[in-house]
């Protein structure tokens, strides 16, 4: 049975190369649906069992390689499948303009890598044995690399792809080192199973740190995030959505999986995760506010949401440390539910961003404006994603944040002073992150869609075709469903958190709260409905006029020049967080030479302080050092022969004198 499935998948994937351009997409889609059905069935099987589901695959260097699916893996399978499916549906419309310019091989390679990404991500969450896990992890990075550099005609995209690849390999180095340490110390094979033994007998924190750095680079915690901010804008939008939606969640999966084996040293680990996550959350969203490129902005928001997930996981670990199952289960449930929620609304946001890019061919929000009139459906979907990511009811972001809040507040009462202060710091951090997210998304939505047109770029825009809208509607429905009916997610999350926490009864006790939330949200919708009806009735009776926006009847110039620009909206944050966001202003002062001043300019740009100091400066220093050494590379073969002779003479002298 397994062999048949394997053969079908392999041939189907390779078959993409043989088909003409139009049909390649459908081949990929069909294969993906097949994969989703198969893994969905496995998921269903795993939920109704006591222990994890185990399926033996094959033998590799003397080890048994099996698929091991527990609730955590099943949950991630669900997240992966939903995001890849909607991404694939969306890509049909998005890639259409590219079909003309790219060759058959390029498109086939893209679809093949898409499929490879899907397969490798599924295998990563289902495998426990070390070598196969690492092989598929590497395949995932390589496939993602090829997907990112799809638009390889631009140099900056290739640079972003290479940065991504290098940082993924640095991460890989950390992970494999940690695995090897565990394996050698315990004498078992490389794999997650050796972790169990290792963490029982040795201190947990150092090896956990290695794993955290490795998986954290993938996840995008600050200061390990610098690949994210280059890769997301460079990749085509359906890939950006999938990257933010699931690829970075693979890092979270890794960290949580490692945590399932750790039973000592939990408090320092928990506090450490919490602090890194708070920093990631606040810094991520603060830097996002000053961006002008909306895809970079969304990338920074992914960092912020990884921070929120990390806060949930951090307090979950702290709960395990002090044997407080309430804190532990609510923290983990909140953090992991946010994995799903973030995958949903972030992919929605990236897909709508892709639609905007397709219509306007610019990523700079200062050139957009007034798109609401031209692309109403896209605008409403973007607004939905924006409200969800800010954690506002009645959408799903609020539910996961609410779970984390409840965990924090409930544990506040049974903790000692130091822990209380830490928990309060978490509460304040979440509140501040929420406020900053509202600030950022009101800015981005308003500048792109509202007001009047700021430049010519939007002249030819119109609503995108329905094949691109359909997957976004599906995500939108899911967002609203989880938001308004959160009790649906209680039992699944109890199972998932149950992998780490033994006593998840507090989650089941939340049923009353969840129905309270649903009832109040239903009341909200009822009120809105009633008022809408009143308004509709009134509008028939009352007199309505249309006119220009009131601007004190100033007839001097074009109103579009007077509306707020993105930089002005973000001005307060730039002022208060100057060190952090690193916004530089370039302008020329007006001089007093003539009666009327001459033309001048004003430009702002921002740079990431971590990117500059951690990556660009050392790399720049290294490169300039290398350039000096490159003097030796003259290209002249006589010089190289000279180097060889000098080396031999030096070695001879040294060994004669017995130094070596």
């Amino acid at each position, binding site marked *: 049975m397994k062999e048949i499935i394997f053969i079908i998948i392999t041939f189907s994937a390779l078959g993409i190369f043989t088909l003409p351009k139009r049909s390649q997409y459908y081949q990929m889609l069909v294969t993906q649906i097949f994969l989703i059905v198969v893994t969905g069935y496995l998921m269903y099987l795993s939920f109704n069992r006591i222990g994890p589901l185990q399926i033996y695959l094959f033998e590799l260097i003397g080890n048994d390689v099996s698929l091991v699916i527990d609730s955590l893996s099943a949950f991630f399978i669900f997240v992966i499948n939903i995001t890849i499916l909607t991404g694939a549906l969306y890509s049909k419309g998005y890639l259409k303009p590219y079909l003309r310019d790219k060759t058959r091989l390029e498109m086939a390679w893209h679809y093949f890598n898409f499929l490879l990404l899907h397969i490798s991500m599924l295998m990563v969450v289902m495998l426990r044995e070390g070598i196969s896990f690492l092989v598929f992890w590497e395949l995932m990075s390589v496939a993602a690399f090829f997907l990112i550099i799809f638009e390889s005609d631009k140099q900056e995209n290739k640079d972003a792809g290479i940065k991504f690849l290098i940082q993924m390999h640095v991460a890989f180095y950390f992970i494999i080192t940690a695995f090897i340490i565990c394996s050698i110390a315990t004498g078992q094979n490389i794999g997650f199973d050796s972790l169990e033994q290792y963490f029982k007998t040795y201190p947990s924190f150092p090896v956990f740190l290695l794993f955290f750095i490795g998986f954290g680079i993938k996840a995008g915690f600050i200061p390990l995030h610098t690949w994210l901010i280059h890769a997301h804008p460079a990749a085509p939008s359906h890939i950006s959505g999938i990257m933010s939606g699931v690829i970075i969640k693979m890092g979270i999966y890794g960290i949580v999986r490692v945590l399932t084996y750790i039973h000592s040293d939990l408090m320092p680990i928990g506090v450490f995760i919490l602090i890194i996550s708070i920093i990631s959350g606040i810094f991520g969203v603060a830097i996002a506010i000053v961006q002008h490129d909306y895809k970079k902005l969304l990338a920074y928001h992914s960092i912020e949401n990884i921070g929120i997930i990390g806060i949930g996981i951090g307090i979950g670990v702290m709960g395990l440390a002090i044997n407080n199952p309430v804190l532990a289960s609510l923290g983990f449930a909140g953090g992991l539910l946010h994995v799903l929620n973030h995958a949903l609304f972030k992919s929605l946001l990236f897909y709508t961003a892709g639609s905007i890019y397709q219509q306007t061919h610019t990523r700079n929000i200062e050139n957009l404006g007034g798109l609401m009139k031209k692309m109403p459906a896209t605008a409403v979907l973007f607004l939905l994603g924006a409200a969800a990511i800010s954690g506002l009811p009645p959408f799903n972001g609020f539910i996961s944040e609410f779970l984390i809040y409840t965990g924090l507040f409930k544990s506040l009462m049974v903790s000692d002073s130091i822990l209380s202060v830490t928990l309060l710091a978490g509460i304040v951090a979440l509140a501040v992150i929420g406020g900053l997210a509202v600030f950022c998304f009101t800015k981005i939505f308003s500048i792109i869609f509202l007001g009047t047109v700021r430049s010519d770029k939007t002249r030819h825009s119109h609503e995108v075709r329905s094949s691109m809208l359909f997957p976004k509607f599906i995500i939108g429905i899911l967002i609203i469903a989880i938001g308004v009916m959160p009790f649906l997610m209680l039992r699944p999350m109890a199972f998932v958190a149950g992998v780490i926490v033994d006593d998840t009864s507090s989650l089941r006790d939340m049923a009353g709260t969840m129905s309270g939330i649903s009832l109040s949200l239903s009341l909200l919708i009822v009120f809105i409905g009633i008022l809408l009806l009143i308004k509709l009735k009134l509008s028939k009776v009352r*007199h309505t*006029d249309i006119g*220009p926006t*009131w601007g004190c009847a100033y007839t001097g110039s074009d109103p579009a020049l007077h509306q707020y620009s993105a930089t002005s909206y973000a001005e307060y944050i730039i002022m208060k967080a100057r060190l952090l966001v690193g916004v530089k202003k370039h302008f020329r002062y007006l001089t007093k030479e003539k009666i009327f001043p001459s033309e001048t300019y004003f430009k702002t740009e921002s740079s990431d302080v971590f990117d500059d100091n951690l990556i660009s400066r050392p790399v720049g220093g290294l490169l300039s050092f290398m350039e000096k050494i490159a003097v030796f590379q003259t290209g002249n073969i006589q010089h190289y022969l000279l180097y060889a002779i000098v080396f031999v003479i030096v070695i001879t002298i040294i060994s004669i004198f017995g130094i070596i």
Partner: protein
Amino acid sequence: MIIKELKILRQHGIQYVPDLKTAVLTPLFRGRPVIKEDPTDQETEKIKKLCPSNAITTEDGFGIDIGKCVFCKECALAYPDKIAFTNDYKIASNDKNNLIVRKGDSEIKFNENIVRPEVRKLFKNALKLRQVSAGGDNSCEFELYAAGNVNFDMGRYGIEFVASPRHADGIVITGPITENMSEALQICWDASPGPKVLILVGTDAISGGMFADSHAVNRKFLEKYPVDLYVPGNPAHPLTFINGVLRLIGK
């Protein structure tokens, strides 16, 4: 800090006029003119030459149009036995014909029949106005500002000036409506939601005053819309304005 200010408050005592409808102004105030005797034709010619703003009309007998009168009192000083100015400040009306004072008139009448029904229905308890200064000498704007101060406090009836025409129920125009302000006035009028009232305050607004013949004045706006209230005066006294508005909204 607060104690000191409360003490000052107590020292000042009651600052506001208790009843705006029955207040009595100083006899020096130039309010409604009375015509005790019709002047002879010769005197009429001289009075017409005296009047700086053509406020004397001789159709249907001698009359002073206080919509055009600048209250300079030259006619009363020249012929004190024929014409005199009283301190009656209730000179606002919604009918331009009622602004002409003839012999024997004892008050400026308000015409209840031409008040639009929606004005009475909506604005009895709250009226928000937007003031447009259409190129005058700012004296009426001062007086309107005073209508909202501690002394007169028209806010007690729910009447106040607001900043945005979208929030307003009516436009109050002062000044003769110059060419440069005509477009802005139209934009402001269009920007306020209906039903709305139009009030003209001051001689300049009602008739153009001394600038009526100027080429810099463009009063086409007034031909388009019905005016709900005329408040004469140069400048109009706050009590005139307030009593006029109160009569308009039916209080």
